[in-house]
């Protein structure tokens, strides 16, 4: 394992901070490089935890403490990109308030955030596969799912190795173009986003599920070889759906949203998702229900809601159900 400081981030009042890359080199002459990036926002702790778990797992292999696997290709992990935001306990670095995931392709002569973006992009430019680990913002909670952009057959096949049932195909937008993920896409790097949980906390169940999925992805794509990896575990059906097919549920009235369903639930048409309580009277003023059957992919977590906010996102029912991984 090689810990490389790829960018120094000087501080006016102390030691410098660093953007770190953790690399694992495969045996013989590797031809592939898997890049895994987490922590573009300082509050995405589940994704950071997943990276840490993967680092620990890969280290046991390269140290010979795990005889079930051999590392064949290169893996590089960037567990914390927005280190200044992470250390200040916030989503963005308070100094510049910039959303680092809207700062790509960056500028190596620019300000700190622009330099970080540029360094990260150049260090992942030679990837043969890239994974972005994310969580929902602090206001929402995501069931673990995949996000992709115009996936071809090969990328869909890769996605099926992750063991996640739903994959949302993102639409082209001005904001997407400023993101690292999009930079990978336009550089012809097969790339996937995995989103799970919410900001500011670690969901170990999700993390364990995703770590297991990424290990399977590494095995199926030849990055790892496994001595005893059962064929039954190799792929799982994934329901790919377009963003526009996502059923977005909004409230009509403001108040406190109290959830009655959980992300990942398969809801029937008319099934209750939650209710809105008026702050001053305590009265239940609105019931939020699923308009059509679907899987609850995103759910409002922050209870305070204004009029007409996004409360829930439901993935359409796919041809395939949620298969156990």
């Amino acid at each position: 394992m090689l810990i490389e400081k790829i960018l120094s981030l000087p501080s006016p009042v102390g030691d410098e901070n660093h953007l770190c890359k953790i690399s694992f080199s495969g045996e013989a002459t590797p031809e592939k490089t898997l890049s895994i990036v987490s922590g573009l926002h300082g509050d995405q702790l589940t994704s950071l935890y997943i990276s840490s778990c993967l680092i620990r797992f890969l280290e046991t292999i390269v140290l010979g403490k795990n005889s079930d696997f051999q590392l064949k290709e290169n893996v590089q992990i960037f567990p914390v990109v927005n280190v200044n935001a992470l250390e200040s306990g916030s989503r963005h670095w308070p100094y510049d308030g910039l959303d680092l995931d809207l700062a790509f392709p960056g500028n190596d002569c620019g300000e700190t955030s622009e330099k970080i973006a540029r360094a990260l992009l150049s260090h992942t430019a030679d990837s043969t596969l890239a994974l972005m680990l994310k969580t929902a913002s602090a206001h929402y909670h995501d069931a673990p799912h995949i996000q992709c952009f115009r996936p071809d057959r090969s990328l869909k096949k890769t996605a099926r190795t992750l063991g996640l049932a739903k994959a949302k195909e993102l639409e082209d937008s001005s904001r997407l173009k400023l993101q690292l993920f999009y930079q990978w896409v336009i550089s012809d790097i097969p790339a996937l986003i995995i989103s799970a949980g919410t900001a500011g906390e670690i969901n170990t169940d999700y993390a364990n599920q995703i770590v297991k999925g990424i290990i399977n992805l590494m095995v199926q794509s030849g990055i790892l070889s496994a001595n005893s990896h059962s064929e039954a575990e190799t792929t799982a059906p994934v329901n790919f759906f377009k963003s526009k097919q996502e059923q977005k549920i909004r409230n009509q009235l403001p108040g406190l949203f109290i959830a009655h369903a959980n992300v990942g639930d398969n809801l029937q048409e008319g099934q209750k998702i939650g209710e809105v309580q008026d702050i001053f009277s305590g009265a239940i003023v609105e019931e939020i229900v699923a308009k059509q059957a679907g899987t609850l992919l995103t759910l409002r977590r922050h209870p305070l809601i204004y009029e007409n906010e996004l409360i829930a996102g439901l993935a359409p029912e796919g041809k395939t159900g949620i298969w156990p991984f």
Partner: protein
Amino acid sequence: MQTQTIASFKSPAGPPLQIVKQTFAACKPKATRRISFIGGLHGDELEGVYLCAQLIRILQGLKETEPEAFLGDIHIYPASNPQSISNGSRMWPFYSVDINRAMGKEDADSLPDEFADCLLKDIVKHSDYAVDFHGSNLQLHEVPQIRILEEFSRKLVPLAALSNVDLVWVHPSAGVFETTLGYNLNVRKVQTLVIETGICLRIHQDYCDQICRGMLNFMQHLKILKLSNPPENMQTPRLVKPSEVTLITSNHAGLFTSKFDRPGIHVQLGEKLGEITHPLNGSILDEIFAPSEGFLFTLRKHPLVYPGAPVARIANVD
């Protein structure tokens, strides 16, 4: 003056969040042209909010003394991002979202997106021209200036020349602009100027007076207003291209101080602009000198710098 609420969202514990538009309609049934002024997209850029308030006051007075002067429709959105303005913050505080990076999305996912969408659609529907007022960010003090993307420069530079600003900066496009109000209005055929002035959380009365006179001149030339006493002695802005702008950045982390109180002065080659001090031991880490002669139009006011942080910009034109 007609007051309209173009967007309103009920809040859980207080008054609704609203975008208010003030309209001064043409004195005749058919308006010559229509213009919109927008302030406060970033809630801490109070110069824009103040500029709109000043224009409203002037136009209200004019409506009483010269109602026949209004040939076109004038719309003013003085507080286009009310929750941010109430908190004095750049971002929409509840979501930490920059509403001027949320424009043009087809599928609004959040309240700030909805607001952005309502504002954009209303301006497009009612405007031939628009002016988006911005103060600068927390870090840099700017002279009154207009920034224009190269792709829109042919139409916008002649308009900018009427605006009584110190400088018009034509610069290349970048992806980030595609999410802004100015870009999205221009691609929808509303010719839009983006004015940048001062620094956030402050109001510079002299800058605002200068721009206000420029806006009256602008409307007079567009035949939206026909003033009996149009503003005089408008200045011709310096027109600069990217190759004519020198950006000076810090090479160190520390505290930047300058002998200059504000930009807007001519500096000589080699003239000292400021220095960077080590906060822990007081040593001078770097002295910063002008690498070229020219018009200092940007000067850092936030002392805290990291390597790469801009400290000044010089236009290499007279």
